[in-house]
């Protein structure tokens, strides 16, 4: 028996197949051109390990920062009845569409030594942010947090708010309700958002190089290292790219079954 409902119509099949090819072929090309014999040697380079470690640490810190700030923000966007919410949502999602370089410039103007906040930090505490690892984390958070906010807001909207009413009738105040009911209900959405956010932070380039610069060991993350290596030693760039690809894929695959799959089903 054929199942007509599941057969893909011809006009959709061809573009869909082209789409798959378009997304997958460059990655295959990368793998084909990889100088596998040099792989071990390239990976042993201290600069590569340094860049990889910096990338993983800063992306993880940026994700943690995004969770701390982004989950409450998503709650406000999803639940608050305050006016100006749509304006707020638009503002929050600007970094999604803003060229990351522009974001880097903006961060520099605010947090740079001459910036509004930066000059005060410098005068009051002697803290300078640009061109430090902190700047990498800030740049990545700026670009990646909207992914988390949007994902968590969607999960909050989809969650049945009647459970919050039930919790209230059972003596739970707003904060207890949020902690013990709302948060567990949207946990799959938060996990999915955190993975997206982490992956986006890991790949961040434009805002980072503008705001944090490109100093090996402190601000040179993997994408920056790839870009630089490409001009000097293309084989090294390919190896670094493959490492980044492997880390991203491994993360997605590891988390997919545990959280993303459930979030998709819910």
């Amino acid at each position, binding site marked *: 028996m054929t199942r007509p409902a599941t057969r893909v119509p011809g006009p959709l099949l061809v573009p869909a197949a082209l789409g798959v090819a378009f997304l997958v072929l460059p990655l295959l090309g990368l793998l084909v051109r990889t100088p596998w014999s040099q792989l071990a040697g390239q990976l042993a380079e201290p600069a590569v390990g340094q860049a990889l470690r910096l990338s993983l640490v800063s992306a993880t810190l940026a994700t943690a920062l995004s969770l701390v700030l982004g989950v409450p923000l998503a709650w406000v966007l999803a639940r608050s009845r305050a006016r100006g919410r749509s304006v707020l949502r638009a503002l929050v999602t600007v970094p999604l569409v803003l060229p990351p370089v522009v974001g880097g410039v903006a961060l520099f103007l605010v947090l740079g030594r001459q910036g509004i906040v930066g000059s005060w930090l410098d005068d009051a505490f002697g803290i300078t942010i640009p061109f430090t690892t902190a700047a990498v984390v800030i740049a990545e958070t700026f670009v990646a947090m909207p992914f988390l906010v949007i994902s968590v807001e969607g999960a909050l909207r989809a969650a*049945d708010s*009647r*459970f919050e*009413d*039930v*919790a*209230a*009738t*059972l*003596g*739970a*105040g707003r904060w*207890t*309700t949020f902690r*013990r*009911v709302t948060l*567990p*209900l949207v*946990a799959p959405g938060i996990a999915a958002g955190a993975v997206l956010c982490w992956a986006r932070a890991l790949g961040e380039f434009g805002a980072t190089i503008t705001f944090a610069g490109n100093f090996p060991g402190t601000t040179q993350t993997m994408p920056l290292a790839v870009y630089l290596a490409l001009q000097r030693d293309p084989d090294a760039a390919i190896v670094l790219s493959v490492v980044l690809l492997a880390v991203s894929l491994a993360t997605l695959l590891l988390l997919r079954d545990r959280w993303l799959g459930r979030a998709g089903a819910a």
Partner: protein
Amino acid sequence: MSLEASVGTRRGDLDLRVDVEVADGEVLALLGPNGAGKSTFVRVLAGLLPPDRGRVVVGGEVWDDGVTSRPAHRRALGMVFQDALLFPHLSVADNVAFGLRTRGARRGEARAAAAAWLTRVGLDGLGARRPAELSGGQAQRAALARALVGDPALLLLDEPLSALDARTRLTVRAELRRHLAAFRGSTVLVTHDPVDAMALADRVVVLEEGRVVQTGTPAEVARRPRTDYVARLVGLSLLPGTGAGRSVRLDCGAAVAIAEEAAGPVFAAIRPESVALYTTRPDGSTRNLWRERVVGATPHGATVRCELDGEVPLVADVTATSFAEMGLVPGAEVWAGVKASEVAVYAR
């Protein structure tokens, strides 16, 4: 631990104005069609919806005074919703213990109390399960245990049985009746099913379009409905008219002979089993005899309930056999006879 509520609030098209009092241990059923404002009213009582004005006092404590509204989580209440709404991420036992934990009980105490309540509602040994592993009836029992475990002053039941299938509803209703009898606080039960109201409530308040249209014991409301909605629920034909000695001149024009004297504006109520149907004009002593047309027929237990229209709008129950023999298809012309002594008359 009594409830006194006098509430006024507007929600969209609904203009709700309700005054009720419920004594300790009393069960008040709020009966009414969808959109009458029943759920809005219990949400106000629960503190989930601040009223525009009014006063809610429970056991001497002021919950609403028209200016300030005590938030839901500071009200000593338990609430059961139509869908059990057990928290899906907690075990059944943790669901029941939830209200104790939020109110400061130790984990061990809360567990013990939850286990005791699970036994009381017949869910012994199911505490470790997830809510998704319970049947609808079991989930609603757990929800009841969760609402009652904190010994609330006020119990709110918002359509607690309407999501259950017919067979489960019977058993859960009987159990609910037992638990309500043991409950010392006040109970407000929202339902659109008159059977729930009759079986569970001490008193019934009928709510239509935001207003109380009738209050009384279940028996009174069933015997002497004051609106078409209730009359239809309890299966009566409700005929408004004016008493004129031993007859009532109906507002629809016809006259009904009655057994006792009546005067002024009255209702004449006729039970469906009191209406006899004939295909030809019968001889005999039946005082009320009207030309009718069958406009609808639905099976109702062992009988068929026929809706009639004509001189007087009526509902008649006939046996399935008679229904078939008389050929009572919609559109059929019949004579309907009602004895004068079978017509209940009461003041409007």
